């Protein structure tokens, strides 16, 4: 797969597009699919009247009623497992795990059942479930409500993993996820949703076509072209990386920013294609540093050809520490613009 050049605020624009937040783009995709496919149902904690703690389901109960949009008890194992069984029988459930941090109470259903049934059945059973979940920190929610953990999900076979960074991709990936016959873990960072009650981020609102469309799962996008250094990242860190790249332009540093969008499948070709041109690699990852995405990106390049890297790559990630509560501490471990900038400057000198 080759990456598509896709600064979504322009390429995604069509005659029918409006500016939406990422949250609204997600809801629109779900609503359109529910409209066309009666088999699509939605369940999870507070997805009904509340509309999703992070506004990922606003208005869907009103539109589709309580037989298709279901608030559940706080029983993640039971209701995620229910989604699996319903999918085996031909429904296409979207099921929300409120925070990815809660995966530990229900991971068995996710990785031993949802993820493996297709394989164990020799391909005879399909399990088309979209598991949506909120990730990320930056607002002092502490060690049990601020994690990204996409590395954990991407390590376990049988799950596709998508992580949109902007409204255009969010809608297209949601449509693709619902139509996919496989389990898809759909991770949205709270900071890209465009929520009215979080720090505002200009890249969380953008042009979104009104009609239904898909963004291909497994395809990275080049969020910004550059020639000196490749910054590979995902989710909220794409915004930060773009901010830094724009600012470094005036210092004569041309940074290319790759938004992976999917971790499984991982668009290794897109990473290599870019690094082949720049020779320099910075990986920015809001998940934990070790045994995760940042190393996988580096390995993808090096196992192809270590000489592609003219400098030692630099990883900007959470340094294997639980996410601290206090703001000063949290921002000392998050991949902030300052850390990204330092890494880019570092790899330019290196």
């Amino acid at each position, binding site marked *: 797969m080759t990456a598509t050049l896709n600064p979504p605020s322009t390429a995604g624009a069509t005659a029918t597009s409006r500016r939406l937040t990422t949250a609204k783009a997600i809801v629109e995709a779900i609503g359109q699919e529910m409209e066309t496919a009666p088999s699509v*149902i939605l369940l999870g904690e507070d997805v009904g009247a509340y509309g999703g703690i992070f506004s990922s389901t606003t208005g869907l109960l009103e539109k589709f009623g309580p*037989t298709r949009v279901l608030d*559940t*008890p706080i*029983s993640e*194992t*039971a*209701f*995620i*497992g*229910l*989604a*699996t*069984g*319903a*999918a*085996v*029988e*031909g*429904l296409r*459930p979207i099921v929300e795990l409120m925070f990815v941090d809660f995966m530990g*109470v229900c991971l*068995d*259903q996710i990785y*031993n*059942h949802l993820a*493996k*049934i*297709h*394989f*164990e*059945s*020799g*391909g*005879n*059973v*399909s399990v*088309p479930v979209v598991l949506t979940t909120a990730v990320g920190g930056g607002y002092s929610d502490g060690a049990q409500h601020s994690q990204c953990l996409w590395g954990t999900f991407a390590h376990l*076979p*049988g799950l*596709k993993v998508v992580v949109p960074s902007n409204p255009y991709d969010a809608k297209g990936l949601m449509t693709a996820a619902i*139509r*996919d*016959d*496989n389990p898809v873990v759909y991770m949205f960072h709270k900071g890209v949703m465009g929520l009215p009650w979080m720090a505002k981020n200009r890249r969380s609102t953008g042009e979104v076509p009104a009609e239904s469309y898909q963004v291909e799962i497994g395809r990275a996008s080049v969020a910004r072209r550059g020639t000196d250094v490749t910054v590979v990242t995902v989710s909220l860190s794409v915004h930060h990386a773009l901010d830094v790249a724009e600012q470094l332009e005036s210092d004569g540093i041309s940074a290319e920013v790759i938004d992976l969008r999917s971790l499984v499948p991982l668009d290794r070709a897109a990473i290599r294609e870019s690094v082949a041109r720049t020779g320099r690699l910075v990986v920015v990852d809001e998940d934990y540093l070790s045994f995760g995405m940042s190393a996988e990106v580096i390995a993808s390049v090096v196992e192809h050809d270590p000489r592609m890297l003219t400098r030692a790559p630099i990883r900007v990630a959470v340094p294997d520490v639980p996410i601290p509560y206090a703001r000063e501490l949290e921002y000392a471990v998050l991949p902030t613009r300052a850390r990204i900038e330092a890494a880019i400057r570092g790899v330019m000198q290196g």
Partner: protein
Amino acid sequence: MTDRNDSAAPGPDVRRELYRTMVLIRSFEEAILADYHADKKPAWDIGAGLIPGEMHLSAGQEPVAAGVCAHLRADDAVTATHRPHHFALAHGVDIDRMAAEIYGRETGLGRGRGGHMHLFDPATHFSCSGIIAEGYPPALGQAFAFKHRGGDGVAVAVTGEGAANQGAFHESLNLAALWQLPVVFVVEDNDWGISVPRSASTAVPDNSVRAAAYGMPGIRVEENAVEGVYSAAGEAVERARFGGGPTLIEVHTLRLWGHFEGDAQGYRPELADVPGRDPIPAYEASLRADGVLDEDEISRIRTEAAARVERAVQFAKDSPHPDPAQAREYVFAGAS
């Protein structure tokens, strides 16, 4: 809790059928037992032979599967446990493809990918899982789908008594009762969770009392009685099918052999008594005493079962092994 409705006691045809199912299961388990151990000697190696891996056989627990599944249609669902063969056979899973899966062949239910703890059969909505109690939640989803589409299908979810202390048990019962899903929860109490006796795992002597925690009917069937199971399950399946919601049935059954093959059961004090508690000779005797079956019929049923199992095993052995070149397939379904 609720007492079983004796008016639902089975007639002669049903009784014969219950017996036939139990005999088929036992024949199957004996055949697997033999082949499993046949080629692991002299130094017993779990990974060697025609049938490698862990093997949890259900001998002694036939009454549960026979009694429950007698009420099911092929479009009803069953999710079983790590010890799944009796329920698979009683529910009508294709015996050839099931054997082939256990022998790890390309013709198996899972093309040899799953193995004996991972039998998936879309035709009979059968599945099972190697993780304790985690088969319950997917059964809820099957029941949900049946109900959502306006059908009258029922999902049966099985665990052992050891598994009834796992969180998934609780969550599933609550959700099923809350949403009045057409589920029958079955707990097979064979007194043991591997080496741990029920008294060392479960704070109450009877799991059926736990039904009250979810406002659903609960019933315990004693003495591994296939007809007791039949009656209790009949009520429960009917309740589920006609919108009355879930039921919890615990059956006091018997693990005739070890937890898995190779288990010397040194921890089991009542070991010497076990063979005498085999439910099949006992049921056979009662059917003979009641004039439901005579020697000829018994022998015919046994012969037929043996022959059917032999054919299945032969099918398995004659089937091709999976191609290692395809080991990475079936992780993801092709794009839709």
